[in-house]
Structures are given as C-alpha cells and as structure tokens.
C-alpha cells in the first residue's frame, strides 16, 4: 500500500460537530419572516378523470393565502429520463392513490391541513391495473392510453403498458442452451421497498425581490432539481437558485425533482416564502419507492460446472410514471460471472400505483437475489460446493464485461477467499442452523464532476464542489485534497454551496462521489499544488522538480529546511505575476471500474414458527483504497443493514384492487433497528482501481445487494427449503417447511412467451 499521510486513516466527519449537537440545518429548519406552510391534497382514486375541483371553501378559510391545482402550472409534461410522462400535479387525470391534486399555502400548518380537507374533487373512475404481469398482457386496461404521443417515447413493441425495455445480447444463447449438459430455470420475486431515509422530503421556496426563485432543498442533485423545476415552471434555469441543505438520508429517493414546484408556485402567487415538509405517510404514498420485481432466470451449465448461457427476463413494475425504471438492473443478470452467451431483457410496466423511484442501485439488489439464489440452486443440484461453483465462473481481468468494456484488475477472488477463511467454509452446522453466501458486483459511478480549490493566506485551502454530502463524502473529498496538498484534513474548508456558486456537477448517487468527484478534487488539488510549486520554484530559485509539498510547506528535496509555507506562498501569490492560487478540474466519464463484494450469512430457523433469526453477517469488499476507513466501514455496515431489512422484514404492501400503499408507516413497514442486529463483520481487500483517486473504488452500493440471497441460501442450508420470494418472512418459511409452497409457484412461462412473441423471438 502506498505511503499515505491522510488516506487509509480514520477521520471523524468534518461536519460531525454540527450533526451531533443538532445545529446542522436541514430544509425543514429554514425559517423566513412571513413564511407560509404548504400542504398537499392527495388523490383518493387509483385511476380517474377529474371532473371538477372546487377550492372555494379552502380559499375562504381564514389564514389561507393561496390554493393551487394542476391547472395553475404550465401544461408541460416532464420525466426523470427521456420519456416525459407526467405533470408535476395531476391535470385532468389521476394515475394513483396519493398523487398530488392540489396544494395550499396558509399561515400555519394546521390551517393548511384544515384547508386541504375543504377542497372538493369530483372524480370519474377509469379502469385501474395494479399487477404488472396483468398490465403487460395484451388487452389489459391502459394506464397511459396516449403514451405514444408523449415526448421521448421510444419503444416500439406493441403493448400499451410497456414504457421501457432495456436489452443486452451476446453470442447464440438458444444454441448454447441446446448444447449445455444441464439447463436450470427459476423465477424470483422481490417486494416493494421504501428507502427509509429519516428526513422526510422538505423544501422551502422564496421569490426574491429581483424575481429570482430560491429553493432550499433536501436533495442529492441540486442541478437536476434546478433543470426540472425550470422545465415544469417554464422559466429560465438561470432564474432559479437551489441551496442544498443538509441531507438526512436519500438513498436515491432525492435525486430528482420532488415537490419543490408546489411551494415555488405558491411563493410566486403570494409573494411570501413557503415551506413544505412531507409527513411520513406522504413519503410512503407519493414519493417514488421501489416496486415489486419479477426476475426469470435461465442458465445452461456443463457437467464440469462451467456456465455457457444465461437468459434473464426482468419485469419491473414502474407504477404510474417512469420515475426511475429498470435502469441499473439490466446488466446484472450475469452477476459476477463470465458467461459467453446471454440474452438479458428488462421490461418496465406501468400500473396505477405510486411511481417508482431510485434506491441504492435500483434493480441490482433484486437481480442479485435472483442470480445468487439461482447460483446456489445450481450448485446444489450439480453436487458442487456453492463457493467453488462461483469461483469456477467468476469474471476475470481481461474478460469482456456486459457493457462491452475490458474488465480491469480487481479483488473479486480475494473477497471470496476472505469470506471462506473468516467463516471456515465449507462447514457443517447443527440442524436448524445454516450458512449461505452471495457474490455481488457493481461498478464505480462516473459522470460530470468538477472541483475548485483556492489556497488561503494562512495556508489552509477552501474546497468548492457542487456535490451534496452523503454519508460523509465531504470528509472523503477533504481527505483527498489534504493528501495531495500535504496539509491536514482540518486545514481544508469545505465550502457550503448552491447552484449559483458552485460549478455544475452530477448528483450524489450511484456510487460516484468519491470515485468521480474525488478524482476531480484530486485533479484540482494537483493543479493548485503545481501552481504552489511553480511559485515556490520562482521564489527559491530552484527547479520545480526539486521541490516537494508536505506538512503544510513546499520544501527543497535535497535541503528540507529550505522552503516556504503554504501560507507564505498564498500570501505572495496575491500580488504575483500569476495571481492567487486556484486549482480547478472538470471531467466527464471515467473508465469502467468494477466493485466486488462477497457476503455470508448465518441463520437459525425456528421450525415451529418459520421465524428466521440472523445470527451472523460477514462481508468483504474490494475497496481499492480506503479513503477514510471509518467512513468505508460505515457505508458497508449501513448498506448491509438495508439489505438485511430487505431480506427479512421490509415489505411495502399494495392493495391488490386499488394499488394503495397498505402500510405507510414505520410501525408497519419494518426496518431493522440497532437493537435487533447481530454484530456485522466487515472486511476489506485493496486492489487499487486504475482511474479512481489514489486507486479508490466505489463503496456505497454493493453491501446492500447480498443479504437477500445470502440469507435465503442460509435458510436452505439450515432447513432445506428454498424461498424464492422476498421478504424471507416466518410465514413464507413455515409454509415452505409444511410443503405449501411448490417449486414452480412463481412460474411465469405464459407471460414470457407473450413477451418473446412480441419481440419475434418465438413464433
């Protein structure tokens, strides 16, 4: 490992003091003179035409300052991606229970809530479709009958409710299945999931004296919110300033425009600042969660355990709008394996439910549950050790990844070896106890990244980036800058930012901040350092190559006492020929850098109740280089906890008739609590990436992928039943133990045939 001064050492977060003492400001903490409170009226119908909205009683209530409906916004559809399929507030038609229909600004929250109750909406019900498999069938009621006329619609296969199809193909998969010694197929279902961030969506809006709009937002993507808000309000983007406040968790749910447009328009109407804080129920019912996913997977294997073909069909329920669809799930149908022939398909189906959002690598956790359960099933049927079967097929340096790029060096095999050693695999456990593994793969996120660093006259440096802090990323960025510039992390000032001040950058999501934004910070810091060295060379009369930068000063390699402090140089720079020291960097896309994680669970299964108890969880990830080991460990543990919840208890339930969320509360949507969890064991291996800052790889997303499959595999090891549907509840396990769940319960052959026929793959 390289000899680091700052990196690979644990640093407390730069914002720890404010967070721990409760002084950090979130969007809900914004108080402005004369501020009004906003409340939302939600649709009570799954799919209905709005006949009329009568806001007169609400408007007449004392204390109410403005009431708006969808008709008060410009008639402009927007979307999360290319497909523009929704209005910011319902107009003519509501598509799900919970969809915003009107909003009120009043002098206090209780008055706003009372006013909401006075708005009268008359609906005419249209046919609703709730089940995605039904939605895909020809002849199903259409959620968006005019879909083909929407801007950005690009899908040509017949089928009214298919809004997106992602595909990837290689080799001759049908031929390979015919040649394979064995063919296995399974269907898995994963449940609806809520991101479970602690801070509900919140924002405040104010029209400034000069007519510009300021938004205080709880967001991961201020520039994305700015662009979308400009679009739905039909105003120039430059008239909007987004101030991202501290983020109380996002996990993908806060990547895009949420409800900022409501207080914005209400502020424009009233001339007063307006604030909106969602209730927890609203977080569940009107802000994109993840929906149930069906994954069909088929694999051709030879007698020696070599996989030669893979087919995977994913059916994503996207809800009423393509908020965040199948996107990242598609390429992961192969898992961490090299498979020469494949056909991968991801369909997004509209249903009359709350639109789908992003959550910590949308779709990949569902796919990992399918792939890694399927791998386990095959290993057992072939009589091979599950770990050996995986090792035999892992993707290796020089192989071609599903996206067509060459796989660079990585630590995949070391992660499996570390898990094997830590647990002493293979091992026999007493009846009712079992161990299971899962291998997870992901890539380091890229995208536009910028950074600017100015050196202050006292030798400190101010770091400006447009990216919002998530999970301590500010601290990691400060560490990178400190390492490059040879100063301590405490000498880096992380500037607070807004979209007027900081240069454009991609959102804080997709495991991209430390990898890509960190790279930009490294480059900006190098730029600043080079300028310091050039200035020092000039002042000391030595060549630049003869100088080093460490301990807060630039010194002569051959005579270390000779040198200048950064403070001296910065002070000198102010009046120098080249001007004050500022380092800048701007980059777009970094090459593909995979991330691998091996995980293992030990469980105890109560045969009388079916209850699964997680007794041990171990994970090992190739992190490249740990920028801040304490933060890396926190990310690994946090991700695993989310995955454990997904595996065992979290389950967003939808009414089968109406699509309404049945459990919109933390009392009935059960996330694991600190009290509940076993000790989590986190291991790291370090095979530096080729392009990340100092060799770092992305960290955030893989830890959450493994628990569903690892735990399902452990249950099989413990009591011999295979659960193909999440969560792995006591009820499901008991039903399986009693033989009430048959192997092919999830079989979706008919639906697959229909999809294949539409694509012309079968007659």
């Amino acid at each position, binding site marked *: 490992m390289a000899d680091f001064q700052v990196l690979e050492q644990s640093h407390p977060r730069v914002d720890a003091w404010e967070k721990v003492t409760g002084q950090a400001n979130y969007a809900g903490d914004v108080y402005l003179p004369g501020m009004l409170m906003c409340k939302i009226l939600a649709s009570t119908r799954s799919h209905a035409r709005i006949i009329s909205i009568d806001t007169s009683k609400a408007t007449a209530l004392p204390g109410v300052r403005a009431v708006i409906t969808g008709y008060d916004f410009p008639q402009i559809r927007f979307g999360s991606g290319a497909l523009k399929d929704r209005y910011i507030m319902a107009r003519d038609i509501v598509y799900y229970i919970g969809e915003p229909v009107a909003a009120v600004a009043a002098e206090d929250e*209780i008055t706003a*809530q*009372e006013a909401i109750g006075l708005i009268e909406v008359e609906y005419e019900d249209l046919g609703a479709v709730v089940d995605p498999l039904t939605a895909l069938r020809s002849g199903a009621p259409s959620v968006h009958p005019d879909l083909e006329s929407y801007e950005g619609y690009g899908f040509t296969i017949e089928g009214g409710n298919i809004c997106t199809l992602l595909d990837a193909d290689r080799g001759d998969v049908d031929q390979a299945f015919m040649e394979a010694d064995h063919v296995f197929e399974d269907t898995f279902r994963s449940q609806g999931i809520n991101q479970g961030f602690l801070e509900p969506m919140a924002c405040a809006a104010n029209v400034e004296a000069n007519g510009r709009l300021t938004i205080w937002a709880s967001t991961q993507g201020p520039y994305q919110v700015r662009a979308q808000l400009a679009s739905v309000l039909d105003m120039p983007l430059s008239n909007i300033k987004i101030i991202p406040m501290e983020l109380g968790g996002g996990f993908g749910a806060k990547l895009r425009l949420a409800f900022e447009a409501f207080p914005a328009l209400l502020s424009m109407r009233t001339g007063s600042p307006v604030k909106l804080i969602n209730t927890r129920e609203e977080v569940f019912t009107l802000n994109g969660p993840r929906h149930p996913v069906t994954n069909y997977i088929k694999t051709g294997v030879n007698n020696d355990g070599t996989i030669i073909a893979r087919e995977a069909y994913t059916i994503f329920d996207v809800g009423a709008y393509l908020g965040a669809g199948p996107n990242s799930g598609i390429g992961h149908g192969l898992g961490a394996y090299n498979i020469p022939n494949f056909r991968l398909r991801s369909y997004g189906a509209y249903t009359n439910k709350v639109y789908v959002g992003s959550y910590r690598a949308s779709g990949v956790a569902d796919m990992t549950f399918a792939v890694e359960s399927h791998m386990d099933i095959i290993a057992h049927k072939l009589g091979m050790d599950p770990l050996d079967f995986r090792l035999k097929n892992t993707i290796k340096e020089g192989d071609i990844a599903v996206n067509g790029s060459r796989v660079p060096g990585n630590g995949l095999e070391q992660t499996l070896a570390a898990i094997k050693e830590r647990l002493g695999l293979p091992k026999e456990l007493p009846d009712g106890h079992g161990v299971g593994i899962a291998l997870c793969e992901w890539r380091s996120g890229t995208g536009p990244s910028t950074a600017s660093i100015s050196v202050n006259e006292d030798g400190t440096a101010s770091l400006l980036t447009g990216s919002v802090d998530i999970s301590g990323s500010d601290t990691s960025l400060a560490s990178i800058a400190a390492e490059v510039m040879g100063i301590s992390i405490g000498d880096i000032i992380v500037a607070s930012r807004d979209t007027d001040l900081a240069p454009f950058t991609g959102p804080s999501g997709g495991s991209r901040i430390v990898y890509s934004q960190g790279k930009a910070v490294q480059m900006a810091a190098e730029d600043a350092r080079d300028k310091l060295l050039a200035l020092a060379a000039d002042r000391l009369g030595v060549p630049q190559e003869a100088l080093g930068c460490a301990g807060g000063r630039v010194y002569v390699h051959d005579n270390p006492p000779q040198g200048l402090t950064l403070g001296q140089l910065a002070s000198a720079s102010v009046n120098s020929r080249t001007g004050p020291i500022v380092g800048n960097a701007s980059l777009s896309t970094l090459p593909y850098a995979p991330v691998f994680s091996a995980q293992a669970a030990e469980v105890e299964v*109560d045969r*009388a*109740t079916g*209850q*699964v*108890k*997680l007794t041990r969880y171990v994970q090992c990830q190739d992190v490249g280089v740990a920028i801040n080991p304490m933060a890396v460990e926190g990310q690994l543990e946090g991700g695993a906890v989310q995955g*454990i919840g997904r595996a*065992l*208890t979290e389950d967003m*339930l939808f009414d089968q008739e109406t699509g309404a969320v*049945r*459990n919109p509360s933390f*009392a*009935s949507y*059960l996330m*694991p*609590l600190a*009290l*509940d*969890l*076993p000790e989590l064991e986190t291991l790291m291996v370090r095979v530096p990436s080729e392009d990340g800052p100092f060799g770092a790889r992305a960290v955030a997303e893989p830890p959450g992928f493994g628990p569903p499959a690892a735990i399902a595999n452990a249950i099989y090891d413990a009591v011999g039943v295979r659960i193909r549907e999440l969560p792995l*509840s*006591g*009820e499901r396990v*008991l*039903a399986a133990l009693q033989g009430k769940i048959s192997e092919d319960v999830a079989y979706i052959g008919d639906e697959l045939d229909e999809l294949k026929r539409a694509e012309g793959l079968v007659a």
Partner: protein
Amino acid sequence: MLRFDYLEARNLRQAISLLQRHGEDARLVAGSTDFLVRWRQGFWRPSCVVNIKGISSLRRITYSARNGLNLGALATVQAIELDPRIRRYYEALATGATSFAGVQVRNLATVGGNVCNASPAGDTLPALLAFDAQCNIAGPEGARTLPLTEFFRGPGRTALSTGEVLTGLKLPPPQPRTGSLYIKHSPRGAMDIATVGVASVLTLEDDGRTCKDARIALGAVGPVPFRASAAEAVLKGKEVTADLLAEAANEARNQATPIDDVRGSADYRKEMVEALTNRTLQYAFRMARGERLSFEEQRRLAVQTAF
C-alpha cells in the same frame, strides 16, 4: 378538530369531574405514547385531553404473599419489567413488559394505558388475563371492581363508562409450583406490534406432574385479547405430557379468530397460536417443576424476532 384543550388533573377526583364535564369529547392520557400517534393519524380528535400522569398515588406497585400484586394504573411498563417480585412470581407479566415497544416507550407507557387502549395486540394484556387480574375502577358513582376478562368490549372499547378511570389492577397471590411465560411473535425485536402473543400460566399438583390449574391467554388473534378456556380445560386435572400440551395448543388454535392484515395472514396466526401455546406451556411446565430460567433467557424466548 385539530386543536384541543389540554388539562392536567392533580388528583383522582379532579380527573373524574373533568371527564364528567367534557364527556365524550374528552380523552384521558398518561404516558401519551398511543395518544399522540393516533391523534396525528387523525383517528382520535378529542376537543379536550385530560392528563392524569401527575397523580403519583396511582404509580405504586405493591406485593405481598398474602394479597398478591397491586399495580397502580400509572405504573410504567418499564417499572413492571424491572420489578424483581414480578420477575419472580409473575414471570409472564415481566416477559410481556420486556417485549413491549422499546426502552424509551416503556419508560413512558403505563400499564393502565395499555389496558384502556384495549388493543387486541397489547403486550401486557395476555399475561394480566392469565393471572386473573381484577380492574379497580373509580367513577362518579364510587369505586367498583371488574374482572379483566370482562373489561375488553372490542378493539379500543372498554367497559368504562363516562367519567370512570381505571385506577389499578389486582393480581391474586402466586400459587406454589407455578410457571409462566409470554411469547410475542413479531419480526422485529423492538418497536413492533405482536402478530400473535400467547401467555400461559401453569400450576402443578404436589406430585409435580398433574396440572392443577392452567390459564392461557391469546393476543392479536381476535377483536380482544382473551382466555383460551377450551385449551385450559384440556389440561386441568390431567398428567402433563407432550401429547397433552399439543392437544391443548391445538384447542387454543381452534379458539383463535384472527384476521388477515399487514402483519400476517389469519392462517399463519392460527399456526402461531398453536406453536406458541405449546412452547409457552412447555416452559411454564419446566418452571413449575422448579427450573429457574434467567430473565435474559426468558426474554430471548419471549421475543421471536428476525435479527
């Protein structure tokens, strides 16, 4: 109505008169752990809230071998969980308390509130029923007592009439050769509501084999928590065997009338009633025969969780 008047009663008489004056528009609170949640959800919207938390005389827990256990209505769930006499003589009540919500909520929530909330899933209720608790009630007409079995009238509905306050619960003295346990099935170990809760109290004859008395109460499998009397009848006077316990458990299952909801299907709940009745009886039998289970061991058994 989103706004309400908040009143604090200094003594019982004042509480009763405030309740009388405001009638159906008033809601009595103490720990307020149920109230604030239900108010925010819009289920309860009283125009007047009467807080009796300050009436310190209702907070006491007393015990004697002769008179049994007296729980003031304002005794907190935490106080019940930690009380060494309850852990010793009324194990199922202590395990019911320890499986209740989380530490912070247990510090605030009162046993009287849990009883008056009359949730079918209330965690202290099966044990109180199985220990034959009597309710002490004070009201405009004076004091009266009522067996807890007659107190619950439906989900959220009790036998209290306007102006009446539950002041305490009285549990008869413990019988020798008795063991008891409560098991709560809930996926999460803290801050979760029972999918099924079962409390069993088993008393043996001098021979240490024959069932002298058995009391079984079920939670979350009917509109109110209730005694599984048919299951109790299977056991009384018979020599305890594994088969007999299984037969009683099956009878308890037959008595359960659960519903399907977000926490589990009716079928699964019936399965759980059988499994947990059997298990509570097995442990109660062992404890009645003199086996001492540490509180930590009882807690491990009592909270059936995923993590």
